[in-house]
């Protein structure tokens, strides 16, 4: 007990420790709270948080690339796509309709790692020739890669299912699962458990466990010789090289680890949806994940996670619900006449809000960046850099150089 107390006391003023603790508590109670608040019909919100977890995983991975190593990657969704499609190939009926003529059904957990591995290899292949480039040039190359990959999948003909993509992927399975009164069933051990839209809580729990594991691993990396080398390369590549760091291979490693995380998330995403299509991996995905990292606090793991959840909920919950909410608000304040369309061209408040969805999204982004330029939960370094640059007019942010 005294050990625990000592641990708590030594971390009580560490913002990251507090953030982790709060996130853990929030993750534990979230399903119960939304079920209670929605009178037992909160399944949708639980599933939404689990879907958001896919983005959070990606944000954690991109944070390694952009935040730790300072490499601006604008084509991150490409690895997400590669992970998804890899899963689709090795865990569905699809290969059976290709000239191979023999479907593969690699078990779910193995297939996840196959997706992750293939994405990491793709990251290494893209990185090897391009990581000699610095800053802006790398950003452009990754941007190009991010555009090419979905197009390749769209035009892959029979191999990738073309425009409609691949459907009926094998669904996630767990070796077992405990059911209990918390989802309104009797306490029981369910062997060979299949995850599907009927048991979103299990999906949510699995997602949170995966996030927790990846946080531990990325945290270990950050505190290892590799994390130090990434920081050093970001600050001064020449000095890092002269101090014995192989700058090309260390950048390549950051790039591959980021790609692996994205590929893992992609495989999971494909399995959950049971469907992949090249439409889901466009530039918007890359930019959204980058915005999550920057907004949350570049270089700080809990920051990237928080940014991930916040942006995901803004994009997939707040904005879709906004028209309806605004409509009931106008009715409540007695301006219900605004709700209806008029012949003069007014489309009605709900349509108007729906149309300006991305304007609102943009304003929220600009607002957050103005209020907290260092991000919601910045790393200590980032905070220092910004205060120094404010007082001493240091040139552009070093991260992106």
């Amino acid at each position, binding site marked *: 007990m005294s050990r625990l107390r000592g641990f708590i006391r030594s971390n009580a003023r560490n913002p990251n420790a507090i953030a982790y603790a709060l996130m853990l508590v929030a993750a534990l109670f979230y399903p119960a709270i939304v079920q209670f608040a929605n009178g037992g019909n909160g399944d949708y919100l639980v599933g939404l948080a689990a879907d958001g977890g896919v983005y959070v995983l990606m944000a954690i991975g991109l944070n390694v690339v952009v935040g730790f190593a300072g490499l601006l990657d604008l084509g991150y969704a490409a690895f997400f796509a590669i992970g998804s499609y890899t899963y689709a190939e090795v865990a569905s009926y699809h290969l059976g309709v290709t000239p191979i003529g023999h479907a593969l059904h690699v078990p779910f957990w193995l297939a996840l790692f196959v997706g992750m591995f293939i994405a990491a290899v793709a990251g290494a292949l893209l990185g090897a020739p391009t990581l000699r480039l610095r800053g802006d040039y790398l950003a452009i190359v990754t941007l190009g890669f991010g555009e090419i990959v979905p197009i390749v999948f769209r035009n892959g003909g029979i191999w990738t299912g073309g425009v409609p993509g691949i459907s009926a992927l094998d669904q996630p399975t767990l070796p077992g699962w405990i059911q209990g009164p918390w989802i309104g069933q009797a306490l029981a051990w369910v062997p060979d458990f299949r995850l599907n839209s009927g048991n979103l809580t299990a999906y949510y729990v699995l997602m949170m466990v995966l996030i927790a594991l990846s946080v531990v691993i990325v945290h270990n990396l950050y505190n290892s010789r590799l994390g130090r080398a990434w920081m050093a390369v970001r600050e001064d590549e020449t000095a890092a*090289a002269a101090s014995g760091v192989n700058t090309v291979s260390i950048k390549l490693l950051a790039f591959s680890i980021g790609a692996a995380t994205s590929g893992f998330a992609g495989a999971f995403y494909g399995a959950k949806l049971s469907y992949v299509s090249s439409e889901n991996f466009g530039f918007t995905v890359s930019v959204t994940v980058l915005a999550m990292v920057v907004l949350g606090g570049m270089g700080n793991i809990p920051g990237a996670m928080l940014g991930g959840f916040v942006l995901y909920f803004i994009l997939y919950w707040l904005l879709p619900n906004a028209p309806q909410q605004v409509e009931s608000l106008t009715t409540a304040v007695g301006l219900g006449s605004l709700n209806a369309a008029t012949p003069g061209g007014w489309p009605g408040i709900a349509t108007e809000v729906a149309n300006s969805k991305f304007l609102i999204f943009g304003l929220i982004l600009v607002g957050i960046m103005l209020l907290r330029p260092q991000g919601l939960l910045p790393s200590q370094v980032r905070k220092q850099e910004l205060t120094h640059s404010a007082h001493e007019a240091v040139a552009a942010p070093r991260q992106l150089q």
Partner: protein
Amino acid sequence: MAPILRLEGVTKRFGGLVAVDNVSFEVQPGEVFALIGPNGAGKTTLFNCITGIYKPSLGKVTFQDRDLTGSLPHRTAKAGIARTFQNIRLFEYMSALDNVRLGHHCRMHAKLWDSLFKTPLETREERQVIEHSMELLKLVELDNVADSYARNLAYGQQRRLEIARALATDPKLLLLDEPAAGFTPQEKVELMELVQVILDRGITVFLIEHDMRVVMQASKRIVVLDHGEKIAEGTPAEVRNNQRVIEAYLGKSA
């Protein structure tokens, strides 16, 4: 004794400009060897050629009987050549301790696997590196500011921290690029004491310096560069009385 570093006809051209022109000399193990010359003589360029930051246009660099010509900076560091920079290049937003820890990078054995899962090997190695880093910080009298960001240290402290980071790579040869620039006389004396300690650890010191008093006192042998060419080599006394050296520094007398 076999020389620790041998340069044979090293030349570096930038387009039409010849920054270093056919320079050859040998550095013996255990000595303090100095490189002097007026501004723009090509001293730092020569350092960059030795450490692999530049690839020499012509010529050969041999370190401990190994050909290091044009090898990459991290390879020369691993081979045992460490350096400091004329305009200090620390990792400003890393603590003094982390700067020195980073210097150990190329001597550490933890693999990706160890870093990912924090294996006992990794934990043990990190602990040893922290201990050793603190020793080095003590050596350069910075152990009391180990947790400060490098950028928040005073100028003299930053210079010493760079030396500690270079020593962390466990070098056989240490290249110091104007280590006493901007130092007070007192700081220069302390620096010379530090150089002696480094020598006593069996590390050969090769330095660029402008302060003649420091150079003449500290070094056994001196090479003088002017306009990229070697114009003299010898003991401090020989170099001081060399006519070409006097001309290079003071101009020809009418």
